[in-house]
């Protein structure tokens, strides 16, 4: 049982009005916390509810209060199945699946691989680790700018390989509308996988050394020790990483713009760019709000089960 750290002095002091200083000291902590809490209440909870409300109105360029029920949701639902020609919402969802899936899976895979490799008593870990990690310091805009140049067939990778003599090499994804989204994923994985590596490395280092010794005495090979003992122990790290990665994938907006060069023709549409263009350029604020609500719900749908299973695990 956790007993409150320090006695709330206010409760005793209120019985004696003369102890004004004591009373102040008692309410002071709450007074200090209140502004932040109120800000969060209004600007997080209030605004989410506001957006939810807007999704039920027919707001166009400006917010209105004309309720239209589930009309906007129905529109998005219809667009979800409008594949020929694809609606921008359909493209956004498909791209989200592609980008999100590749981004999360490759970040986890690369992150875990690098972490395990680095955990083999490597000389020069102090040099290697920061190299994997530095892209994290770069903004998505800078990341996108760099990869756009790097993958640009006219001056980037393709041209360099041609110069080296392999003239049949062909790699134009970054300017090919149907392949653009993969370039976004490549750039994203490059930016974030180092961070995932750091998370896993911290997790690996946190595993009780005696457990590993016990496994080795039991005759487990290094591979078996990782697969059967260490990785299962790191379950919470997986959950944390998955939550953080999906959250970043769903809200990422700037990466698409910078890799693709402002998303030409909507080929690399994602829910985040969809939301932005419908709200701020196409004057369909209600539709934009609806898509924002769906983004929020998606994150919640991934987060809640993870948190729930984690808390249940801890509660045991």
């Amino acid at each position, binding site marked *: *049982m956790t007993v409150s750290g*320090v*006695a*709330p*002095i206010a409760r005793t*002091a209120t019985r004696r009005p003369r*102890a004004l*200083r004591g009373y102040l*000291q008692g309410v002071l902590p709450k007074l200090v916390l209140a502004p932040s809490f109120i800000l969060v209440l209004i600007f997080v909870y209030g605004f989410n509810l506001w957006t939810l409300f807007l999704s039920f109105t027919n707001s166009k360029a400006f917010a209105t209060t004309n309720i239209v029920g589930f009309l906007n949701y129905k529109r998005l639902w219809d667009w979800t199945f409008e594949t020929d020609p694809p609606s921008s919402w359909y493209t956004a969802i498909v791209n989200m699946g592609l980008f999100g899936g590749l981004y999360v899976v490759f970040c986890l895979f690369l992150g875990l691989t690098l972490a395990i490799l680095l955990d083999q008593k490597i000389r020069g870990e102090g040099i290697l680790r920061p190299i994997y990690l530095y892209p994290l310091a770069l903004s998505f805009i800078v990341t996108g700018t760099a990869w756009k140049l790097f993958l640009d067939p006219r001056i980037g990778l393709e041209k360099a390989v041609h110069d080296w003599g392999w003239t049949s090499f062909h790699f134009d994804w970054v300017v090919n509308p149907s392949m653009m989204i993969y370039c976004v994923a490549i750039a994203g994985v490059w930016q974030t996988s180092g961070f995932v590596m750091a998370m896993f490395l911290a997790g690996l280092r946190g595993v009780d050394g005696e457990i590993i010794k016990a496994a080795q005495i039991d005759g487990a090979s290094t591979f078996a020790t990782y697969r059967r003992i260490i990785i299962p122990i790191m379950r919470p790290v997986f959950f944390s990483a998955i939550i953080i990665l999906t959250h970043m994938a769903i809200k990422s907006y700037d990466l698409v713009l910078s890799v693709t060069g402002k998303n030409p023709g909507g080929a690399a549409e994602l829910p985040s760019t969809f939301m932005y263009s419908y709200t701020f350029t196409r004057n369909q604020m209600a539709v934009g709000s609806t898509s924002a609500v769906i983004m929020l719900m998606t994150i919640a749908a991934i987060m809640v089960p993870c948190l729930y299973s984690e808390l249940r695990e801890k509660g045991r």
Partner: protein
Amino acid sequence: MAFLEIDSLRKRFGSLEILKGIDLTLDKGGFLVLVGPSGCGKSTLLNTIAGLETISSGEIRIDGDVINDLHPSKRDIAMVFQSYALYPNMTVAQNMAFGMEMRGVPKQERDKAVAEVAKTLQIEHLLKRRPSQLSGGQRQRVAMGRALVRQPRVFLFDEPLSNLDAKLRVDMRVEIKRLHSQTGTTIVYVTHDQIEAMTLATRIAVLKDGELQQVGSPYEVYNSPANLFVADFMGSPSMNLIEAKIARTNGAASIVLERPGAEPIVMPAPVSADATKLRDGGAVIFGIRPEAVSDPESADRNSKHIATFPCRVDLVEPAGSDTFVVTTIAGKEVTARMRADADVRPGQNVSFAFNLDKAVLFDPASTQRI
């Protein structure tokens, strides 16, 4: 009037009652040790005296002043914590002076007070160091120095020795005892270690589940435990507690200890028991400390009632200064303390001398001493 008085103090967390009406007093210069198993409420009691936790009802007075509602800093107390709670960002001298600084004591006076206490505790050479540069024992001294420098009315110690290794713990125990007798301060001290309680206290309060079991001098608590819990808790190895029956013949009560496969032991009821409460055939619990059971040669010569019986030895534990010999009486293991060179081996039948002056009886139903 006592110096520290606690009247029917209660403390509740929601529906959970941590302290169930505590009444305690301590004279000026006294050393009160609160002892009990973990979770008994002893630390909570100390924290309420310090003002770190509020009380649900009751009253706490120091020197006649009610301090219930006072902020900890206004109670004129000092506290030594289990973890020492030294501020890691300050030097030893700054740590000791912080309380005075907060009270607006001028720097000169602070320095003087710190220097004096540092001299008493022989920590002058540590004054400029930070807590992280000190050993466990040194930290302990600094923590005491910080308390001493304030010259408070009451010192509170919260298990101050439990983070030290065994040898250092004994040294610091002696140190605290010496400090107390030199300075004559009033101390309330929490520990779960009954040896610390016995050696330091002028008064022991035994707590269990938020209730006082017994308050008294170490001698009283040890020799006349109020109930089975206190009897079992105080002393190491703990008191032998054996189920027994009363037999009354010609008005004299005697105790019968059944032994399967052997003659029952019959001996006169201990003088400590109230003979009027002993019914013929009634069940009692016979309590006797290991040092009151010995080989006949080393039995207490001043004792008026010694009963000697042969018993079968189950186990011998040489402890260096003594040899503990275990036998079974009435289905219970009974430990006797014999001479270090007593020549006993498991399986032998040896004479055990019971010093009945030191024996006590308990009522098995109420667990209280008779």
